[in-house]
């Protein structure tokens, strides 16, 4: 083997997987081969064919069309969740890390208590209060993700707040907000970015898990987790129905995690 430069296979593979996934989801917004909710009794449990590339489900709905719609829902929920977690996490972590003091002490004690808790369980608590449904899942997961982001941002702000460049900005008369968001935050970005990608994957897995449990996205809206829970009842008669939605979740998560490793390796160069 003669390689001059070691190729970043993670970045390439992650880019391809994520790119094709996003492309399919984009196409799915404008065009699906069938109406994802149209039932065709004649096509019940139809196998894989040209007409139905992933077969049909127990109501004769086209699985491929539903997978397209379902992955869009999953992606949307994950994006919103991570946005909520990041925005509130940055606000909380920046203020506590930069100012410190009693406020920091109180908020971080609460944060620690919540952080010690698996985020899935936390989301379940919120769902049991708010009730099931897509928007409630977004709110529940979003809130559940805040502590971990807050902790990371706080750590970065603690590290940078006494650095020379911050002191010099202060001497030049920059306000606290300017220092926090124009001077310190950009330096915290590399750490935050990898946390965001990991958070994104956790959100995809959590959304799928909650929909699987029947407390996420409600029917008839398609969701990958929900499809799997329906498919499980027919696992022994129509295994393909379970395999495809599951494979798409793996595809999505694998793409993003390879991409994040690739980006990490690239920035170390």
């Amino acid at each position, binding site marked *: 083997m003669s390689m001059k430069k070691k190729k970043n296979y993670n970045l390439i593979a992650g880019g391809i997987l994520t790119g094709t996934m996003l492309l399919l989801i984009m196409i799915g917004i404008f065009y699906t081969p069938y109406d994802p909710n149209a039932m065709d009794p004649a096509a019940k449990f139809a196998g894989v064919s040209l007409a139905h590339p992933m077969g049909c489900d127990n109501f004769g709905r086209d699985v491929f069309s539903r997978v397209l719609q379902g992955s869009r829902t999953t992606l949307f929920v994950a994006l919103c969740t991570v946005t909520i977690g990041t925005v509130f996490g940055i606000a909380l972590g920046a203020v506590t890390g930069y100012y410190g003091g009693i406020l920091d002490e109180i908020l971080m004690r609460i944060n620690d208590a919540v952080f010690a808790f*698996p985020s899935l*369980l936390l989301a379940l608590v919120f769902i049991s209060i708010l009730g099931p449904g897509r928007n409630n899942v977004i709110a529940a997961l979003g809130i559940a993700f805040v502590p971990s982001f807050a902790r990371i941002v706080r750590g970065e702000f603690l590290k940078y707040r006494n650095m020379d460049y911050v002191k010099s900005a202060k001497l030049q008369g920059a306000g606290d907000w300017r220092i926090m968001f124009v001077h310190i935050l950009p330096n915290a970005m590399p750490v935050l970015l990898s946390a965001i990608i990991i958070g994104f994957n956790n959100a995809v897995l959590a959304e799928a898990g909650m929909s699987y*449990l029947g407390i996420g996205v409600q029917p008839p809206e398609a969701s990958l987790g929900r499809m799997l829970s329906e498919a499980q009842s027919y696992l022994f008669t129509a295994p393909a129905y379970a395999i495809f939605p599951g494979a798409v979740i793996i595809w*999505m998560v694998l793409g993003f995690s390879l991409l994040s490793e690739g980006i990490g390796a690239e920035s170390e160069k």
Partner: protein
Amino acid sequence: MKYIGKKVIMMAATLLTVSFLVFLSFFVMSGDPVTSMLGTQATPEKVEALREEMGLNDSFFTQYFRWAGSFLKGDMGTSYSYRMPVESMIVDKIPVTLALTGIAFLLMLVLAVPLGIYTAKHEGGIADRSIYVINQIIMAIPPFFAGILITFLFGRIFRLFTPGGYVSYKENFGQFIGYMFFPALAIALPKTAMAVKLLRSSVIGEVKKDYVRTAFSRGNRSNQVFYNHILKNAVIPVVTFWGMALADMVAGSIIIEQVFSIPGLGRILLTSISNRDYPVVEAIIICIAFIVVFINLVVDIIYQLVDPRISTQEQE
């Protein structure tokens, strides 16, 4: 000892905070349980009588301390839906969830430690690279889908267990463990992949340090250096991960219980959530919180045993 005492106090404070937050959120958000119990047609007198009987007319703090106080005595309240004591509903479910989590944790250790050491020792080899690829894929599999695949593979094709054929630990302990093995495997797989990866990179990072070169230069044999020096230090960051993984497994078992129809805490939690049976939900959340916080305490103590530097650092 001082270190452990401090950690125990921290644990109690965390539990207090969690219980307060949980009680507060259900108090503020959940609406009136009396209306859901009696329906909208009930007479005001009936509603008032039940409110008085359940103590719902007292102030928030009175209610919280009464709830927390009786919880400590083992009285977890009364279920709205079943009108029976919560503790009788969940006590025999706790061992099921604990067993599932425990087996999953053991599986993770048994698989991850040898694989992690092996891949680190043979860094860059074919086995190392194939395990890397397999790990990446396993980490992307949602545990419940792993459960479905395992059901299909081992339940249907190899017929190693009967899906849905759960046997209670009270009836036959051996068969109970036998049934739990495959659900536990579904929980353990993604964590194992992460554990292998972490141990591998931790060992590789340690090998490059100066003290290892010194140990070799003094003429130690390679296995001796590996197990007495490298592994001892490399395992320190991994212990923290094991603790977090164990806590995650407790939560993960909620989903896996659903996949394999195991009557543990997770199943009753989900039924109670859809029935809006708040006393049961609260009790289960607090029980799981206790398990999770206790795991963290044990990890902190073990952590100090493997790395004595920790306790002196904390005291500063």
